C-alpha cells in the first residue's frame, strides 16, 4: 500500500513512476469514465430537485422573517410553493428509487462489490487518510497526497450522511404530506416528530451536506478547484485520474478491468456546446451556494446568540 504522506504535492514527483497506460488508452480512449450517464443524470435531477426543495421549503421554516415572507410572495403563496415542493419531492424520490435499484443490480450482478475496495463502505485506509489530513490541518505534518481509491473518506462520509438524510426527509415528508393517513396507523405525536425532523433535517442537509461539505470537497478544495467536471463530462484524462485516485487505477490494471472504464473524450464541437450549458449550470449553482452560505452564516449567528 502506498504511503499516505508523500510530501507537498509536486506534479513531476508524483508522476515519477509513470502510470502504465493501457493499450486501449492509446487507441483514442484517453479518458477515465468517472461516472456513467445514469449516475450523472441522477445527480442532475437530485441537484435540481434539492435546490427547489430548499427554495420552497426554507421560507416556511423561517416564516417569522421578513425575507421569507417576501420570498413566499414571489413564489405565489403557500399553496403554490407547496405544490412545487411536492413535485420536486417526487423527482427526488424517483432518484432515490433509481439509486436503490442501481445498488440492487450491483449486489446481484457482482457479489461482494458493495463492500469491497472502490465502494462506499469506509475502511481502514479512510481512517488513515482522515488522520493524515487532520495532522496537516493542525500543522503537525506536511501536505499528504492521499492515495485514494474510487472514493475518498470525505465522499464516503457525505454519501452516508446524505443517505440517512434523504431517508429521514422522505419518511417525515410523506407523513406531513398525508397526515391523515399517518393518523390511521400511528399516534398523532408522530406528526410532531415529523415536523421537528423535517425542519431540522432540511437545515442539516442544506448547511452541512451542501454548503460545508459537498460544494467545497467537490469543487473548491485545492485538487479540484475551480470545478471538478467529472460529474458533468463523465470522463477525466486518464493521467489526471491515475494521479488523483491511484488505488483504483492500480486495482483496475491488476484486475484487467481498466478497459471497461476507458472512454474517448467528447469532440471539440460537442465540448463547446457542453461548455455553455456547463457555465450556466455552474453559474446558477455558485449563486445558490453563495445564497445558501450566507443563509447558514445567518442561522449560525442565531445559534451562537442563543448561548
Amino acid at each position, binding site marked *: 500500500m502506498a504511503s499516505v504522506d508523500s510530501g*507537498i*504535492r509536486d*506534479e513531476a514527483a508524483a508522476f515519477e513512476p509513470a502510470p502504465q497506460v493501457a493499450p486501449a488508452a492509446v487507441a483514442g480512449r484517453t479518458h477515465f469514465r468517472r461516472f456513467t450517464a445514469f449516475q450523472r443524470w441522477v445527480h442532475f435531477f437530485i441537484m435540481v430537485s434539492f435546490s427547489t426543495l430548499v427554495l420552497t421549503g426554507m*421560507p*416556511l421554516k423561517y*416564516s*417569522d422573517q421578513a425575507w*421569507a*415572507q417576501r420570498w*413566499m*410572495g414571489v413564489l405565489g*403563496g*403557500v*399553496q403554490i410553493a407547496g405544490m412545487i415542493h411536492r413535485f420536486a419531492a417526487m423527482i427526488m424520490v424517483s432518484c432515490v428509487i433509481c439509486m436503490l435499484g442501481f445498488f440492487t443490480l450491483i449486489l446481484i450482478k457482482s457479489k461482494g462489490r458493495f463492500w469491497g475496495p472502490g465502494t462506499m463502505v469506509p475502511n481502514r485506509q479512510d481512517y488513515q487518510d482522515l488522520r493524515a*489530513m487532520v495532522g*496537516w*490541518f*493542525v*500543522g503537525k505534518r506536511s*501536505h499528504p497526497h492521499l492515495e485514494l481509491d474510487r472514493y475518498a473518506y*470525505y465522499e464516503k462520509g457525505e454519501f452516508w450522511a446524505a443517505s440517512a438524510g434523504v431517508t429521514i426527509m422522505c419518511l417525515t415528508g410523506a407523513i*406531513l404530506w398525508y*397526515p*391523515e*393517513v*399517518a*393518523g*390511521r*396507523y*400511528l*399516534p*398523532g*405525536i408522530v*406528526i*410532531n*416528530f415529523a*415536523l*421537528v*425532523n423535517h425542519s*431540522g*433535517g432540511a*437545515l*442539516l442537509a442544506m*448547511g*452541512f451536506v451542501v454548503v*460545508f*461539505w459537498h460544494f*467545497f*470537497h467537490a469543487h*473548491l*478544495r*485545492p*485538487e479540484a*478547484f475551480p470545478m471538478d467536471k467529472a460529474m458533468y463530462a463523465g470522463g477525466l484524462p486518464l493521467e489526471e485520474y491515475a494521479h488523483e485516485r491511484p488505488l483504483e487505477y492500480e486495482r483496475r490494471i491488476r484486475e484487467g478491468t481498466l478497459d471497461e472504464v476507458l472512454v474517448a473524450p467528447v469532440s471539440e464541437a460537442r465540448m463547446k456546446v457542453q461548455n455553455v450549458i456547463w457555465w450556466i449550470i455552474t453559474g446558477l449553482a455558485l449563486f445558490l451556494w453563495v445564497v445558501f452560505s450566507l443563509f*447558514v452564516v445567518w442561522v*449560525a449567528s442565531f*445559534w451562537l446568540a442563543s448561548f
Partner: protein
Amino acid sequence: MIPRAFLTTSLGIALLAVVVLAAPAGAVQFSLAHGANGRCLECHSKPDLGTIVANGERKSLTVDETTWHDSVHSRLDCTACHAGFQAREHTAEEQAGWYQQARLTACSDCHADQFAMYSGSFHGNLVMGKNDKRAPACADCHGSHGIISPGSPEFRASVLTMCGRCHDEKSATYLDTYHGKSFRMGETSTAVCTDCHGHHKILPASDPDSTVSKQHVVATCGTCHDQATSNFASFLIHNDRSTPKSSLWVWLMEINHSVLIGVLFVLGGLHCFLYFYRGLREGLYHRG
C-alpha cells in the same frame, strides 16, 4: 245631502293619498335618519374629540367616516346601537350608563342567536357572570364602527391578533404549526383560532360541549381533514418545542437536532476552512 258615492270616492282618494304620501314620508324619515347620522358626525368626525374615562385614560370619540361607510352596518342609524343619545352634548351619566349595558345589548337586539351562544360561552360567562373586565364582549373581536364580515379574508387575518391579546402563548405555538406558518405567509384559508375553537360559543377543552373536547375534536378536525381519526387529532397543536413541559419527546428531538447541527456545522466548517487555508498557504491553488 252629500251623495254616498262622493263620500266613498273621496275616502278612497284620501286613503290612497295617505299611502302614496306615506311612502315618500318613510323615505323622508330614512333620509332624515341619515341626516341624523350627519348631525352626529358634525361633532364626531372631529379628530380631536375625546373624553377621559374612568381609569383616567383618554378615549377618542372620533368616528372615521370612511371606516364607517365600508362597514356592514353603514346603513344603520347611529342611534340603532347608541340608543337614547340626544343630538346635543351628552351628559357623563348618559355616556357611562350606555357603556355599562350597551357593551352587550347594543348588538343583542339584532343578533339574538349569536348573543345566546355567547352567553353560554366561557367568555360570556366571564363577562356577565364574573364581571371580568378583561374578557371579550362583542366589540372586542368585531370592533365597533368598522365591523366587517367575519368570513372576509381581512377579518380572518385579524383573528390571531385579537385572540393573542390574552392567549399570546397559544398564538406562539400555533405559529409553529403548518397552519400558523402558512397563516403568517398570508394564507387566510388555513385554519385560524376560530376554525377549531369556535367563535361565539368558545368553551374550554375540558367541557364536553367544546369543539376541541375529546368528544368533538375529531369532528372539528374533520371539517377540513375529512379522513381525520382520533390519532390524527391527538397531534400536539399547541406544543412548545423549546421546553420539555409541552412534550418531553419532541423537546429531546429538538435538542438532538440543535446539537447535531451545531457539532456538524462546526466540524464541517473547520474541515473546509482548514483545507482551504492550508491549501492557500502552501500554494496548492496555483497549478502549472
